């Protein structure tokens, strides 16, 4: 078990992202272990989202965005992967604002399995139910699976987005400030789900709720102004006198 946990899922070496010459993040070095929840906290504009986009190679769709450095996913450099689609299908991403695709709730969750080539209705049914259940949405929508996903409430849509990310059966789940559009009760339910999912996948949790990182993350990194100031075991980051005074100020709410 110890051995299993210490395996490195994602290793970032000297990562830098810039937009048309303007640096968003630079000099990021960190490694994320398999089956951990890795929290990233930091104020707005710290480069958290740019970091996530680089992992997923979403820079391909933004000609303005340049990425330098190495990103090793399962030990392979993602920037050299030819099959970027396979990479993305292994990484589930949840954006800050929910994106319910303009199709039925069922199709929202069945789309990714269908893209993988699963055609059989019975199999899809099982996947849809499992993913919606895990995203704590099944009970609310099981009677109207064929209504439009985009008509759900904001919090429900966010859970639908999570269900859709899970339907990819990702090895790495990336959540970018998922709780912005979600009420506190639902947030707590999703947090419980994430704790369970940890046994099956690696999770990167970007959040601007410092306490959320404290509740969930095994280790937490503090980003500020495009730099990774500090990475530590979460409890250590929050309790001990951290090595950097900026981290302390941020987690204690003195700025940010």
């Amino acid at each position, binding site marked *: 078990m110890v051995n299993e946990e210490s395996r490195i899922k994602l290793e970032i070496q000297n990562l830098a992202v810039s937009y048309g010459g303007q640096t968003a993040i630079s000099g990021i070095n960190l490694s994320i272990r398999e089956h951990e929840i890795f929290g990233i906290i930091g104020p707005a504009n710290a480069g958290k989202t740019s970091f996530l986009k680089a992992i997923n190679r979403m820079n391909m*769709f933004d000609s303005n965005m340049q990425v330098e450095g190495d990103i090793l996913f399962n030990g392979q450099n993602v920037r050299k992967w030819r099959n970027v689609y396979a990479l*993305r*299908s292994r990484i589930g*991403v949840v954006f800050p604002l929910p*994106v319910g*695709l*303009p199709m039925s709730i069922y199709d929202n969750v069945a789309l*990714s399995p269908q893209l993988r080539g699963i055609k059989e209705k019975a199999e899809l049914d099982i996947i849809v139910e499992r993913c919606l259940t895990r995203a704590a949405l099944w009970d609310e929508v099981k009677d109207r699976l064929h209504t*439009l996903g*985009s008509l759900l409430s904001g919090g429900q849509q966010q859970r639908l987005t999570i269900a859709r990310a899970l339907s990819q059966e990702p090895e790495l789940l990336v959540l970018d400030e998922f709780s912005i559009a979600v009420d506190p009760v639902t947030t707590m339910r999703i947090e419980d789900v994430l704790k369970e999912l940890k046994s099956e996948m690696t999770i990167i949790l970007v959040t601007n709720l410092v306490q959320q990182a404290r509740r969930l993350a095994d280790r937490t990194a503090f980003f500020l102004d495009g730099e990774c100031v500090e990475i530590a075991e979460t409890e250590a980051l929050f309790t001990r006198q951290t090595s950097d005074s900026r981290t302390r100020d941020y987690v204690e709410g003195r700025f940010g």
Partner: protein
Amino acid sequence: MDNHMFAATELNQKNQRTEKLVRLLFIMMAALLILPVLVILGTLIYKGGSVISIDFLFTDPTNGMTEGGIFPALLGTIWLVAVALVISVPLGIAAAIYLSEYAPDNWFTRLINLAIINLAGVPSIVHALFGVGAFVVFFGFGTSILSASLTLAIMTLPVVIVSTRESLQAVPHSFREACWNMGATRWQTIRRVVLPNAVSGILTGVILEVSRTAGETAPIMFTGAVFFSPFLPQGIMDQTMAMSLHLFVVSTQVPGVPENLPYGVALVLIGMVLLMNSISIAFRMHLRGKKKW
């Protein structure tokens, strides 16, 4: 003092008067748009309504086109529009998908966009002469439905491209990103998410094209449409009569045509277009009721 808190000041009153005036002005301007439609339709129905009958639609013109029906012209217009659609719709939609979903922003894309804008600005008589040179003579299709429809297709291509591209762009970008993030290819994203939600807009463009194609005269009169033909077209290499040209002919070229005949022809032509438009509006409303984000 408190009493005066919500009382209108002189300035308030002045603003409100202006607001009412401006509003009235705009309503009147908008209402003016209805006028030409009503006058045209009213005149046509009043003067040409009497000639419309089943016989008029389904018999040949007789007696030097001064009597009889319009069947060959009606059928010819349907031929011309259908063949033009078969050519321009796949081409236009494919081009629009490329421009909207694939094309990087570079000189080549800008060149294509420039070409589309210019193509839309070319007068129809120039298209007609181009059609003669290219399709009738150079490709050797002769004066035929094929030549005429190709000319019409090229002329209406910009309409299809621009309206298709706009309806594709109207699908929010976040849907595409969500799909790409799942590992979908661009084509999978287009097929599953973008196209189904752009259909109603694309359809509108196609119908617009139909309306325009059905009414055009210049591009077909040298390339495939004839004043009078005793035969119905049997295939795309035949010449044909057409409604728009027939209207021109009975209005100005043939002596002794009863006054109500040209009005009747015009009424049928405009009726065809209005019918197509209503079908498309109904279909769009049906689609829109089903899909929404």
